[in-house]
């Protein structure tokens, strides 16, 4: 379902060229639960950004649902981000002036879905996450765990095929973090492909497939 072939990505930092990804190959099957671990600067986030179509590789091919994404136009990439990919960020990235429900509704708004259908889908997304009574609150009135669950509801409302989570528990205490992980795993059980980037070995260890990255390359890829 996802196939990366010889992906290279480098950045210019000052005079130095940093190779964030070197000839990286990776295949993910539909419905897989994968964790990516590794030290800072190992290219985890770069990989995630490329998978999420936020960043383009310098060379190599990236097939998403049998489409070669490297040939897509900006508009088509935006469309793919909208319909196929869900993001969960460490810093939540909720729009502070919008209520939880409005934040969740945002991808539907961008996709041009009609308002009555939007209301229905927002309701359906908030309910299983236990956020219905918080729907009218703004992010600053929510706890960390509630904020991240709102972000998860937003990431999944377009029913994407893959959910990319970048340190989803990084800004949360242990209890809320576990809560969020359980939420993500529940979604994975329902069939969504889940990819979590994390520093925390405890969280990384929960995934059936664990990838370890060092210096822009995969050094370990274990399954249980």
């Amino acid at each position, binding site marked *: 379902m996802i196939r990366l072939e010889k992906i290279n990505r480098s950045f210019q930092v000052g005079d130095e060229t940093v190779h964030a990804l070197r000839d990286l190959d990776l295949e993910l099957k539909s419905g897989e639960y994968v964790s990516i671990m590794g030290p800072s600067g190992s290219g985890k*986030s770069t990989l995630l*950004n490329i998978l*999420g179509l*936020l*960043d383009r590789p310098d060379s190599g091919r990236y097939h998403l649902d049998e489409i070669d994404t490297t040939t897509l136009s*900006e*508009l088509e990439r*935006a*469309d793919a*981000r*909208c*319909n196929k990919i869900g*993001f969960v*960020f*460490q*810093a939540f*990235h909720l*729009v*502070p*002036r*919008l209520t939880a429900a409005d934040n969740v509704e*945002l*991808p539907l*708004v*961008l*996709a*041009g879905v*009609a308002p009555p259908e939007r209301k229905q889908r927002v309701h359906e997304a908030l309910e299983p996450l236990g956020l219905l009574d918080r729907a009218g609150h703004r992010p600053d009135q929510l706890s960390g765990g509630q904020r991240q669950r709102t972000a998860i509801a*937003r990431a999944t409302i*377009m029913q994407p095929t893959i959910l990319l989570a970048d340190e989803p528990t990084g800004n949360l205490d242990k209890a809320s973090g576990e809560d969020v992980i359980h939420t993500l795993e529940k979604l994975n059980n329902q069939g969504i492909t889940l990819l979590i980037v994390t520093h925390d070995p405890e969280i990384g260890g929960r995934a059936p497939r664990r990838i370890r990255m060092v210096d822009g390359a995969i050094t370990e890829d274990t399954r249980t």
Partner: protein
Amino acid sequence: MLMEDTLRFGSQALVGAKKRTWLMVLAMAIGVGSVVILTALGEGARNYISREFSNLGTNLVIVIPGRTETTGEAPPMVGATPDDLTLDDAIALTRSSAVRLVAPIIVGSVPVSYQQLEREITILGSTADLLPVRNLSLAKGKFLPAGDPTRGAAVAVIGSKLKKELFANKQALGQWIRINDRRFRVIGILDPMGESLGLDVGDIAVIPIATAESLFNTSSLFRILIQANGRSAITKAQKAVKAIIKERHNGEEDVTVITQQALLYTFDGIFKTLTYTVSGIAAISLAVAGILIMNVMLVAVSQRTEEIGLLKALGGSERQILSLFLVEASLLSLAGAVFGMLIALGGVWALDQAFPSFPLTVPLWSIAAAILVSISTGLLFCTLPAKRAARLDPVHALSGR
């Protein structure tokens, strides 16, 4: 993205950042307000001048004795003093079909008294035609009697200010006043029309022309006012007047004939230029407001990089982001234009209260232009920040942890 959602998102973003929004609306409002107020002042000045001229009368042609034109001819060997313009000249002018009414005028300044009160005022000697030619109206009584202008009765029509000063609240009609030791009966009182081109109609007395001739002991007219037979006949009347006078004055064209129109056009041209200049100055202030808006908008974009990155991650295309920011800009400009209009109307109203005699009007085109210009400057100056937002790299935008 649906248009209503774009609008809603834009307005929410504006409401969400109140301070910034107010700052930009204020900048725009001041720009728009100054455009409207300055054009109103320019237009007001133009209207003021036009009104002064139309107060003179309609289709007016003025004949002034003496020729004030400079010609390239050599100085005449024999001194050609211009002949006086006389009452007979004026009567002769009625021969032309282009001339409807003729009002010859003799002017003098003499003391006028009633009982113990005496004042020195301007006396106009004229005929019954002066009333329509000069657009005067009566508050009370009658104007000079029509009939043979060469016979003068001892009657006077006085201005309202003079009436008040001589008679206060007493009945003036039918009373006898003294003008330079001659007795005149007051038969009418002029309506106060204010000042028109330096002559205060409240402060004059009008007597029959023949009486004025003997009172001032002169047959020389100050000028002749002519009402042409319609707007199209003005030029014809002007030519006819010159021809008739030339014939009567031994082939010497020794009068100057000016039309009200010519004067009006000159002033109108000057004031149109003035209005445009003033609008130009105002447009500069609008441009300054635009640059201010651009700066604040650039700050807004950098403050909202995270949000823009997020919108991109959620599937927003460059075009959507661009249109979101442009919609925000147009909403801002529109709000600015509305507030500016309120400022302008308030300002014009205040000026109107302070200077009631000055005809301040806000021309419709200036309102339309101000709104148009404010929206286009808003869009123009927000295009750069909006493009910047649209091209923003979502990876960098979202990595600000």
